[in-house]
């Protein structure tokens, strides 16, 4: 189910209207920048990643198939893969500059969180660490489940189940947040 704004952006992309880029940036820019930053852990690199990703999105616009994925899923894949590639190329250049230390990956700096998303930060805290660690390793580190299992020293079966449960937990939290926001809106 796509929203009206999604459909509007998709039609602009199909028409190669550069208003699409502006709308994409306004609607998904912060989240995608967050994803890029989470992967590369460097603001300048994250900016490069976001810029490269938007060029890819613009160039590949005609390959987007709404029947196969929501717009955000498609955008996320592009940004995530661009960021992982960027991280690998930088790491190859200088192993000392950026260290992929598992302990770095799981530290969500308070400064990194936009005040607008503080409620979500609270929700993030609600996800148990054991699930979050697995989700972050798979989503942001580009690890396969086997790699995550080796890296985190957790059995593969547990990785699989934590991924599923973690995603399910997210749904519950999201559902609660949306209900609360709805109630608050109705009250105000």
């Amino acid at each position, binding site marked *: 189910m796509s929203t009206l704004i999604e459909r509007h952006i998709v039609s602009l992309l199909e028409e190669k209207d550069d208003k699409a880029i502006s709308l994409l940036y306004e609607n998904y820019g912060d*989240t995608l920048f967050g994803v890029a930053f989470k992967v590369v852990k460097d603001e300048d690199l994250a900016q490069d990643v976001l810029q490269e990703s938007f*060029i890819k999105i613009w160039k590949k616009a005609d390959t987007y198939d709404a029947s196969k*994925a*929501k717009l955000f899923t498609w955008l996320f894949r592009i940004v995530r893969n661009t960021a992982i590639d960027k991280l690998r190329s930088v790491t190859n250049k200088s192993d000392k500059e950026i260290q992929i230390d598992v302990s770095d990956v799981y530290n969500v700096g308070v400064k990194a969180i936009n005040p607008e998303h503080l409620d979500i930060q609270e929700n993030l805290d609600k996800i148990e660490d054991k699930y979050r660690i697995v989700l972050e390793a798979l989503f942001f580190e580009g690890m396969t489940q086997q790699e995550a299992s080796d890296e985190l020293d957790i059995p593969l079966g547990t990785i699989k189940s934590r991924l599923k449960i973690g995603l399910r937990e997210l749904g519950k939290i999201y559902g609660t947040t949306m209900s609360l926001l709805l109630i608050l809106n109705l009250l105000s």
Partner: protein
Amino acid sequence: MKEKVKIFLESDILEKYLLGDTTKEESQKAERYIAMYPDVRETYEVLQKNLETFANMYAKKTPEGLKDIIIASARKETMVSKRYMRYAVAASIAIMIFAGSSLFFWNQNKTLQEENTLVTNQIKYLEDNMKDQLADMRNQFIVLNNPATKKYQVRGEREAKELKAIAYINPVKKLSYINVSNVPELPEDKCFQMWAEVNGELVNLGVIKDFDEKDKLLALPYADNAVGYITIEPKGGNNIPSVDNIVANINY
């Protein structure tokens, strides 16, 4: 069927597909299951929603000015791709012209090769023909000059009394020639035809034409005790000689 869906959902293909980490085969499988089974479709929808929720948790304010840089880059990219398209069109036209001219030259080359083969064959034919004629001339010269050559006068009989021919036979060189000097007039539907009986076999030597062959020496196949015949045959010649119409015998 439900078991199949359950097994699929328990595998991690859908989660990997969500992130774009699947192989081509896994992607095809995931897309097939999403299209076919509502349970899978629903799970995929939920996963997509949750991915967005999860990613939103890490949202970070984009730096000032980045939006303008990105929009400018996208516009630049559009211009580059338009220019690239123009180059691509120009390159395509150039390739088409090149392909067209290549085809033209290839065809021309093929035609010339065919003509070359034809001319070579013609030269070969002429050469062979010339050699045959030279050999024939040489033989005629031998027959006419050799002292061992015997000369036989051949006279026609019955309605071909005016037929006159001279046969030259050389048993040493094993050559025999005939010169038909006078051919009487025949009805239009008739002609004279020459035959030779060589070792019991009749050989067709062809039709005697009125004028062309008057001064010509015609080679006869040589054999000891061979017999030559001239017969009157229907116009155009016959496959076998009409014995009743033999108008001349040449024994040589």
